[in-house]
């Protein structure tokens, strides 16, 4: 497994210095954006399309295609927004980028701006990331001081301003339209789509909104060409991905690997294997929102968009959560339910009431007051929530709820008063597990 380090090499080679403009330029920084200034915007978009770069925020939408949706002849101003509102439990890759290589993100934003003819860009940083936000702000200040941002960037006649904006601590502000609402000064309540942000986004103007990791990959792609990037990864999942690994593993942290590596091999090689005395209970590969995988699903699973979907889970935002066998699935689900019940924006009925209800039902089980009816109700509620709301937060609650009950019924059975008829529970699961993501 010889993985290229497209996003992390600089940080690994120059610990403690990689965030400075000096190091960045010394290692080839701001070359790509100079190249981009001489390129036709459509050619930049084409290069990103060729690279096969897909959104790293969770949905996996091809980035070049997203840029291509912005109208060319719009009279309105256009905006680029970088989504650094990384709030998914288990995901902390953007945090690494903002701390260690903020200039890559800035350069990515600059290239995206040039590609769609945008002159004002934003980076929306999660409110809790105050240190990371400061790191990024410092880098922005450095870039401004050198004339890389502002009027006539890099000596060209292209103007570009970059504004760092902090969120106020809402998970849902990471949803792209929720982020735009928040950036406009309102509550982060996701919008109905269509219209998509590419057509009517920030202040109802065409907007490209990409994840931090997505934009950070752009400078490399422009410098080395889309084809070079596309050589990494698998047929449909091109390039590399940063996985933020947590759980009872020996070396938790952020690791960048090519798409398509084998999951258990990744755990052994990068995560240092499981801690001594702890067995593997399951892995949540893509952040808290995606369905949990049992050890037998993990065995031989390819870590890319298609490979994980085949095994019933998703790449999501790359929050690789390893669960040890010393943890009860009830606790896991209760923890997640508590999170989603707290973070639902309260706009759509199913999500608003459903998340809290699931938390309540699982909490009863956890406290020994629950019965089998609680479990079947959770499944029913999950079914009634998934796919029936404006954004995917309801799905993000429903999928783990069904997956945890489906994969670890005995954990729940242990705590339910009056015992659980596992066969009946299995039937209930099979009635509702159609909501889980699956390869079509």
């Amino acid at each position, binding site marked *: 497994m010889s993985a290229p380090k497209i996003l992390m090499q600089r940080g690994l080679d120059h610990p403690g210095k990689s965030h400075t403009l000096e190091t960045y330029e010394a290692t080839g920084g701001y070359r790509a954006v100079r190249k981009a200034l001489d390129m036709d915007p459509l050619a930049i978009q084409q290069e990103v399309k060729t690279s096969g770069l897909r959104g790293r925020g969770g949905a996996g939408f091809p980035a070049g295609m997203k840029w291509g949706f912005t109208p060319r002849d719009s009279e309105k101003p256009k905006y680029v927004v970088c989504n650094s509102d990384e709030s998914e439990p288990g995901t902390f890759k953007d945090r690494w980028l903002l701390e260690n290589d903020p200039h890559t993100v800035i350069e990515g934003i600059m290239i995206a701006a040039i590609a769609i003819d945008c002159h004002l860009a934003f980076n929306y940083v999660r409110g809790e990331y105050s240190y990371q936000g400061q790191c990024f702000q410092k880098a922005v200040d450095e870039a401004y001081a050198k004339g890389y941002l502002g009027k006539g960037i890099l000596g060209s006649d292209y103007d570009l301003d970059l504004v760092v904006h902090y969120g106020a601590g809402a998970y849902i502000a990471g949803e792209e339209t929720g982020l735009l609402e928040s950036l406009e000064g309102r509550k982060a309540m996701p919008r109905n789509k269509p219209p998509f942000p590419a057509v009517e986004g920030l202040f109802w103007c065409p907007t490209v909104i990409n994840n931090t990791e997505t934009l950070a990959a752009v400078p490399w792609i422009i410098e080395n060409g889309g084809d070079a990037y596309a050589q990494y990864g698998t047929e449909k999942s091109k390039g590399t991905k940063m996985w933020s690994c947590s759980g009872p593993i020996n070396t938790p942290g952020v690791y960048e690997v090519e798409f398509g590596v084998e999951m258990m091999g990744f755990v052994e090689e990068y995560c240092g294997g499981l801690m001594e005395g702890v067995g593997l209970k399951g892995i949540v590969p893509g952040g808290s929102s995606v369905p949990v995988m049992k050890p037998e699903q993990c065995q031989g699973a390819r870590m890319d968009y298609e490979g994980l979907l085949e095994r019933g889970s998703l790449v999501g935002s790359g929050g690789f959560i390893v669960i040890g066998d010393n943890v009860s699935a009830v606790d896991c689900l209760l923890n997640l339910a508590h999170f989603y019940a707290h973070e639902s924006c309260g706009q759509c009925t199913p999500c608003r009431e459903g998340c*809290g209800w699931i938390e309540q039902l699982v909490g009863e089980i956890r406290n020994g007051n629950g019965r089998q009816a609680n479990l079947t109700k959770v499944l029913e509620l999950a079914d009634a929530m998934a796919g029936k709301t404006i954004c995917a937060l309801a799905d993000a609650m429903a999928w783990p709820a069904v997956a945890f009950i489906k994969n670890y019924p005995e954990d729940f059975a242990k705590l339910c008063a009056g015992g659980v008829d596992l066969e009946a529970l299995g039937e209930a699961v099979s009635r509702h597990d159609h909501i889980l993501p699956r390869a079509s």
Partner: protein
Amino acid sequence: MRRNVGAEKNTATGGTRDREAVDLAVILPPGSLRKAVEPHPAAEPVTDALSVTVDGVEVRVPAGSTIFQAAEAAGYTPPHFCYHRDLSVPANCRMCLCEVEGQGKLQTSCSISVADGMVVKFDTPRVVEAVEGVLEFEFKNHPLDCPVCDQVGECYLQRYYLEVGKYEPLPMNRIRKLKVVDLGPITMDAERCVLCSRCVRFGEEVTGSADFVIANRSDHSEIKTFDDRPIETDYALNYADICPVGALTSNDFRFRKRVYYLHTVKSICPGCSTGCNVYAEQSEDALYRYRPRYNDNVNDSWMCDPGRTSSNALADTTDRIVAPMARVNGALVEVEWDAAIAQATDAIKRTGGEIAVIAHPDLSNEDLHQLRALVSHAGGRIDFRVADSWQQIDELVDNVLIRRDPYPNTRGALEVLGVADSAQSSVPTILADVAAGKTRGLVVCGWDLGALGEPGREAVKTADWVWFVGPRRVDTLDHADLVLPTAVHVEREGTFTNHAGRVQRFWQSVSLYAESRPAWRVFGDIDAALSGNATPRTALEAFDRLAAEVASFSGLSYAAVGDQGSWLRGWEKETMPPVGIHAMPGVRRPSPE
């Protein structure tokens, strides 16, 4: 039990007795009776129409319509809380879900625009199951206090749950929120709220007062005013209307009557020259409330609080004149109508010369036309412009609905009485002539002496005879020789013409009070005795005579005016802008602009 919610024809009043508690709120599961809805403006055939099939019914709707509008055109109103045709579309209640052929996920019909050839289904098990699910969620934290809730009978939640509820009793811990918060005109119960955000959007988009916000997140979300302060806008009671549940109820109407005892008749608010379309609702002959009625040429779905609560003043009978009265030996005594009419006719014949008539812009077009006919046969002069407000007929007080002219039919009076061309009121001259003895008979319609001012006080003293025609006792009666009691507008049928020249019908809601009569009949009877022209038998006939004789009304009829009104000839307008401020960024209208 499923009630028939179709509109019944109320033959007694000629109006449509509409038992619907709330506009367009009915959910119908597969196979049940479909409600006939009033055709939505979007349903009118247009040239660039798209063909959409809703549950097997093919309809043509204009490009840019939503699936919701197409479904309405096909005769089905999808269940909904958050959708309101005069507010933006947040699509957050998730009740109007439908299956669109070729799309995997269920779609919210209120927010998705139709495409040509689209096939939409509302009656599939999948959709019904989803709606059941949403309703179950709504009940998670909703108190089951229907017996003491004032919204019963016009509650969307109650209605939908009756149709497709799960009826599955579950023990639940409800989240407690604010209850019985007095917000001035409105009482708020946040626990009953389904968080549809209609009130939030109304405050932002129509009045601009932004009274409500949704505070907190998730299932702790609740509607609130800032610091629980009372609502100060003049349109607060619309909050009670648009609230689909009992979260916002009107302090004016709350607990006065269960709405299913109310009989609803279409009417017009007489509060100002805007002429908002309303439903007048009565029970056992007592008027209980007005509720705004949709008219996109006038008031959209809104009305102001002063106009709405004017129904209370209208229902008050303490100062009504009971029967015709004549002055005998210095005192007014009640007489029969025949005697009163005979006395009036005699008075005109005896006087011989011109009479002076001070009409009132509260009178309907029919009344004014009969009055004008009477004056033309008797000989004399007529005007109604006692107050200056007729000059401000179009002026809005607040950029929403309230206009400076407080009378409902100023435009009609200007047109019918033929005084529209004169920039000056002739009332001072008319009264001065009476005071100078040049004119000897004086007819005062409704005005009190305070309104008529000094010339009026002189005139009533000098005139040979003074008649008072109106519904209520005012100080003018002290000088009147003959008092002819007339009906207020909810007691009879007729038309008003609003400031913009829209002729609008109102229907009879309650019985005539005591001996009072519609003014057109009173004037018609006197005119008949004078000229031999038969009195019109109905308001319709009176209107037909008006249409035949007054140019700007030509071509109009009750049928043509209908319940949405019709422009006066020469006053036709293409489209009226939406009511309200609508200045918030990102505000989306349900229909294309």
